């Protein structure tokens, strides 16, 4: 099957300012969304997409206000349905670069069904999940990603809901692209968003985002500067998975599971460290990487990136084939097909 690209490229050298809208940004001061917006605005010029062909689609929630702040076509829709609406946008006009922005509640509670099916079909959408592990716009109820046991307005005795890990969900749905970033590291966010845009098919970027009003410091255990290098690992294709302030810690597969090891201790050498490959078709290792926490560093960067024909490509191939070789060329042909008779 010939690989096709449907979104036309632009020769214009856009800047961040070209994509910044004139609307006042109304998020709380200090909200992680500001940084994610900035990363996104920096991403668009790097994709070389014609500005008119960019379409932002969002659901409902704090993060879903984002279409108003981006000077492109945009649709701020209803709670949970952004993936479904975006799917229709892309099917009606495959030349559009379609971006979906959702929060954790929007994408994995009310909109969970649409997310998994968009991912399963590998529909060509760039999906960003702003994960602050709380319902912010309704003022602090637990979400599908809230940590087990956490006290929130609707879990005064601690939640008894086991949380989703978005990466596991995406891979369980046969996702072809999953990346993770932190709101507080905008260059990394821009980098993974750019790679998401280059991916043909459904790409999901999870950004761990801080809601300083209702769930402040929920990601602090990994994002604080003091611990970040030891608590996270930025994956780099083709390189051994090393991390830590001294870059002396690494990820090893011990035959049963992943473990964190230190080079030079217990006879560990660089050869024991897993070399990262984002393109393995089998989700096994990617799933393990997406799940890392606790003693293992949280994986950041592109965790999975495999090639598989996108829904857009398969759809357009079928359309083109039928348009060229189909039985009917116009509706009159159809109306007069089969058994008809003259009176």
């Amino acid at each position, binding site marked *: 099957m010939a690989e096709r690209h449907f979104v036309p490229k632009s020769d214009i050298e856009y800047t961040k300012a070209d994509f910044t809208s004139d*609307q006042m940004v109304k998020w709380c001061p200090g909200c992680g969304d500001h940084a994610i917006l900035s990363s996104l605005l920096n991403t668009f010029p790097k994709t070389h997409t014609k*500005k*008119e*062909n*960019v*379409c932002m*689609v969002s659901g*409902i929630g704090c993060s879903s206000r984002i*279409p*108003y702040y981006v*000077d*492109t*076509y*945009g*649709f*701020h*829709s*209803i709670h949970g*349905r952004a993936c*479904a*609406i*975006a*799917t*229709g*946008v*892309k*099917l*009606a*006009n495959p*030349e*559009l670069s379609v971006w979906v922005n959702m929060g954790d509640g929007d994408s994995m509670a009310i909109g969970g*069904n*649409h997310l998994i*099916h968009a991912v399963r079909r590998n529909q060509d959408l760039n999906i960003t999940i702003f994960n602050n592990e709380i319902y912010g716009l309704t003022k602090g109820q637990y979400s599908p990603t809230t940590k087990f046991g956490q006290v929130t307005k609707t879990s005064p005795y601690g939640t008894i809901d086991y949380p989703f890990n978005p990466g596991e969900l995406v891979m369980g749905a046969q996702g072809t692209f999953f990346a993770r970033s932190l709101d507080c590291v905008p260059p990394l966010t821009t980098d993974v968003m750019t790679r998401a845009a280059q991916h043909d098919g459904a790409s999901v970027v999870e950004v761990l985002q801080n809601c300083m009003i209702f769930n402040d410091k929920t990601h602090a255990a990994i994002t604080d500067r003091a611990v970040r290098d030891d608590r996270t690992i930025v994956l780099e294709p083709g390189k051994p998975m090393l991390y830590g302030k001294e870059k002396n810690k690494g990820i090893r597969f011990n035959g049963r599971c992943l473990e964190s090891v230190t080079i030079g201790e217990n006879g560990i050498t660089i050869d024991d460290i897993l070399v990262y490959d984002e393109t393995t078709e089998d989700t096994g290792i990617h799933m393990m990487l997406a799940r890392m926490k606790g003693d293992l560093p949280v994986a950041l960067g592109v965790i999975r990136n495999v090639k598989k024909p996108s829904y857009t490509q398969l*759809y357009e191939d*079928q*359309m083109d084939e*039928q*348009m060229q*070789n*189909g*039985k*009917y*060329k*116009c*509706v*009159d042909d*159809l*109306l*007069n097909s*089969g*058994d*008809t*008779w*003259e*009176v």
Partner: protein
Amino acid sequence: MSQDQIVNKDDIVIRFAGDSGDGMQLSGTLFSDASALTGNDIATFPDYPAEIRAPHNTVAGVSGYQVHVGSHIYSSGDKCDILVAMNPASFKSQLKWAKRGATVIVDIDTFTDEAMEKAGYTENPFTDELERAYTIVRAPITSFTAKIGTEKGADKKTYDKCRNMFALGMIFYITHKTLDKTYAYLERKFAKKPEVVELNKAVLTEGYEYADKLELIHSHIIEVAHADMPKGRYRNITGNVATAWGLLAASERSGRRLFLGSYPITPATDVMVELAKHKSLGARVFQAEDEIAGICSAIGASYAGALACTSTSGPGLSLKSEALGLAVMVELPLVVVDVQRGGPSTGLPTKTEQSDLNQALYGRNGEAPLVVVAASSSANCFYWAYTAAKIALEHMTPVVLLTDGYLGNGSQLFRIPKTADLPSITPRLAKPNDPNYRPFRRDEEKYAREWALPGMEGLRHRVGGLEKCPDGPLSTDPENHALMTKNRQEKVNRVANYIPDQEVTGNPDGDLLVVGWGGTSGALTLAVEELNKEGKKVAYTHFNYICPLPKNTGDILRRYKKIVVCELNNGQFAGYLRTQYPECPMTQYNKVMGLPFEVGELKEHFNKLLNA
């Protein structure tokens, strides 16, 4: 037979009944097609259970297919003149649909003790009383078919599937028709299996010849009058296919890509099934993960510039409510096809009803007006789908098209139009780089906004469910919300300026005005026609434009002292009319049985009103 044995009739109703999977629908279709090809008007209606293959030989598993042929056919008919019952269960459950005096053909071979017990018979089903009321023909269908099958070297599984051909052959004889059209059909359908063609033809012929030898039948040969139809090219079409084709025609005439986002649901699925075949005509069909994604994908497609549609039935429309409100708010064109079924909840999935009207009119949060139209025959589903699309695209509004299971699954003759002769459709597209473009700027006449599509230069804008001001940005200003609410309503109201006046048929000077809407027009038309022939004075008006109503509706209603609003629900349209015309006293005739109206019951009720 000699010519004097033949009874001439205007029409005849035949009902084929058997186990689901006995091929009753095929028998019915072959008969109706052959009739249409030989100059009759036709209408058909399948009456099947929700179960795909309920237990063999049980009443739950009986599937029926009714065919009405004649000179002037409005509906698939009330009770039948001929009933074919392929097993005891179908005899038991379907006899109630036979007229007194009807010819009832049973496959007597199937009346074994076991099958009769399964059907719920404890004694001989052919009581003296039944023998007096009907002409019961005990035909050995299974054994004759088996004999031919064995002669032709076919296995039991294959020849058992041909039993329906035997019955069909008998029907052809009784209705004084030839077999050649059906031979030709079988040759086409099984072109790759000549042995199957031979077997089916042989069984069909045997049935025909068997009937010829039956004295019992000779006094019951019926010749049905030919139809006097306007000149033109005709075909048979079901309502769901007609709906799909109407949308395709609207796409071609408007120059907008057709998009259908739907989820399978009885009895609407066939709209999606049909459109899925037509990628060559540009139909972009998306089978969504659920009803909500069906409409949401359509809304997205509409934003991107498609003639966007979603098809569903009652429970699906409930699921689409919130998104329908979004379509109202963003003022995008959208066609929602609701093939109504018995409700509430799962209700009667395979049976017909008109009880989604209130849901279509009011089933959204907030002040959320939209356009509602209804088809009134299987064939005119084509025109109403086309009209719904035209209104949506020209007035920038969601439109709900109400059809129902009876129209959708039933079939009728359809005079094939030329698409070039259909009314033009001019979508309200914005002009690229128009410096004056504002998302919610309206034109003075229609109050419709312009449609700016992603990809168009210089028209970048944002839409969404939050209230906006006319220039586009968000607004929570109280005055603005009042204005936008008023404008959205006014836009829908003004559709009335673009639709024809409501007509009155029957005897316009009648003592009684019969009011109907949607899929009931066949039975209502015939009831009113027959009463007027009998010397009564009955006027009749049938609504297809539901919201907004035609502008002369009040003038019509105010002319009559006696009005009866007839519908297959508890009075939803009557209630809607009362809120708009409280000065007009209206009575109701309602039926909520999952069944269409019968002419007989309507006439009886109208007579009562006339005599009161």
